């Protein structure tokens, strides 16, 4: 297993991550087997040994370790050889936002992606003693907070009459939303119309619309895939829900 871990390194490098020393992480308690840092965040890897076949407690402990580490990184993966991967319960991994990499002979396959999770800030570790001074300080802060809440409650009472005016503003906001939706629709129709300006006008006919010859892309459609260019459907679809009735 250990000799294949270079494949895991290559896999992460190909995605813009660089390996970092596990000691640099300053972690207490459980530590990952490998760690990587990249533009998207911090990733940990725990390797799964072949002991996982036939030893359920080993796998359970590994998952518990992974769960404990999950809050300390943005991505966390288990890396398992192909043989071991066939017996892993990926549903458990999915539930705890843990990814799974399968190490083959020549490459690594991401069987289950690890979703991004923000790293949690340091918390009080179970079992840490809390001294009396700290408790007193917290209590005094609590008292101050209670006083401030009392003041805020008084201010809210004075503000209550303003709620009527606010509710009329809410109606105004809904109207603005409707206008915004309409502007969006007009904007799309403009996109479509400007795309069609480049094409010659279709012959006058009763019902159907002919296919359009290819024309140069309009700036409004820049960045969109090529099948948007000169597509008469953009204009047709932008009118959906307004006046047309299907056959």
């Amino acid at each position, binding site marked *: 297993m250990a000799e294949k871990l270079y494949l895991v390194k290559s896999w992460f490098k190909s995605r813009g991550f660089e390996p970092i020393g596990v000691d640099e992480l300053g972690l207490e308690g459980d530590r990952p087997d490998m760690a990587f840092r990249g533009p998207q965040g911090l990733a940990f890897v725990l390797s799964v040994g072949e002991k996982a076949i036939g030893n359920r407690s080993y796998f359970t402990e590994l998952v518990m370790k992974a769960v404990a580490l999950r809050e300390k990184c943005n991505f966390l993966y288990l890396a398992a050889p192909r043989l071991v991967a066939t017996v892993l319960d990926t549903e458990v991994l999915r539930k705890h936002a843990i990814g799974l990499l399968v190490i083959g002979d020549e490459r690594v396959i991401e069987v289950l992606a690890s979703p991004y999770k923000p790293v949690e800030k340091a918390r009080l570790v179970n079992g840490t003693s809390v001294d009396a001074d700290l408790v007193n300080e917290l209590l005094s802060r609590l008292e101050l907070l209670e006083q401030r809440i009392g003041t805020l409650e008084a201010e809210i009472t004075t503000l209550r009459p303003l709620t009527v005016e606010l509710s009329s503003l809410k109606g105004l906001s809904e109207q603005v939303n409707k206008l915004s939706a309409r502007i969006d629709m007009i904007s799309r129709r403009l996109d479509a119309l400007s795309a069609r300006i480049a094409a010659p006008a279709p012959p006058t006919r009763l019902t159907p619309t002919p296919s359009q010859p290819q024309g140069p892309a309009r700036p409004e459609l820049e960045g969109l895939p090529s099948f948007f260019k000169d597509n008469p459907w953009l204009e047709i679809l*932008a009118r959906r829900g307004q006046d047309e009735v299907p056959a």
Partner: protein
Amino acid sequence: MASLSEAEYKRKYTFGEDYGTSFYKFGPITCGERPEVIENRGYFPDETMIMFQLMGKPREVVIGEEIAQFLGAREELADRLVYPMRNGVIERGDERAWRVVEEITRYGLERFRPKADPTFDGFFVCASLSAVAPRYMYERLFDIHKRIDEGTGLVKAVTIIPQPLAVAIAHKTPTCVVVESGHGNTQVCPVSRYPIRRAIVALNRGGGDANAITSQILYDAGYSDLAKEETIVRMVKEAIGLVPRDLDEAIRAAKAEPERFRAVVKIPGTRITIDLGDESWARFLIGEYVFNPGHEIFQSYFARGMPRPRDVKIGDVLFRGMLDFGEAIIEAVEMCPVELQPYLYRKVLLSGGNFQWSVPPELEGIAVDSATKIKLLLREKGVEDVSVEVAREPKFSVWRGCIIYGYAVSASFEWSWDRMEGWVRFRP
């Protein structure tokens, strides 16, 4: 979406889903020209296996590349490997098929979950189903997306369009007849800005039937062992199958000059070589059978036990067995207003893997491509002035149509069961 206009938001988060018979094509607008593709299938592992009893339960349904790790003996594949859209329609009570659809849908959406974008509030998903999909399939697919959104926040709104409409959109053609032919069936759907649903003609015939006659030809040529191997049969069909301009003339020519028409296939990576020898004329039967199974020559095959494509009713739709493609197009067009009919014939779009027939340069004139064959079938029945075109990159047409539809149709247009279009929104 608070800081972006609808158009700006949709430029990033319009998502297309094409539930094809063999492949699920999916991805957001940012994929560009081509979506991601996985096989539209799921595997249900045998939970009673000793390995799973010892090591813990596997997932109920496995999809994507992971399936390869579970595949066991061929005998059990038929029971455990489920292709939910094999016939374009899922039966109402086929819960295993729906489980697969839910799993691949979830997989597809999760695959493109944006990382750390505070403006993301779920995709505008435009899914596409067969034109003959009944209403309960729409209801189930909406439910599936709702459930996925409740657990993941990945779907802001969803809509469903018929595949032929998506093909017409991708090919920039508002008025046309789309003939979509997949593995199990064929749909003929006139489109004039909207799919004309009352004029859809469905056929119980597709690429699978071409495989059936290829298998019979291999059997007759002495390759009875290979005739049972689905993969080999498909390879032979693709390598030697030809569409004749006129079947009787093609057979006469091939029998007169057997060397010129000789069909030899080497199966890559094996020692197998298939040589039809004097029976090479039969390669024309493969293409003819797809377009016109009513030719009298096929009677002898039916008499020897090859199943005849039958009329079947799935849901509320009658799938016709023996109608030739020309008759099917005419029947569909003639259900439309008379004034519209000439415009529909001016653009017949052929889409799907069942129309990908090549013509060897040395056999030009005797063998033809799909578009020419359709024109000939229509001309036989008195329909002239027809333009027929095979869709470019047919594998991705439907997904592209979905992307354009999802981008262009306003989010304020609510789903209507009368019109069968609009958005089902899960959030404001």
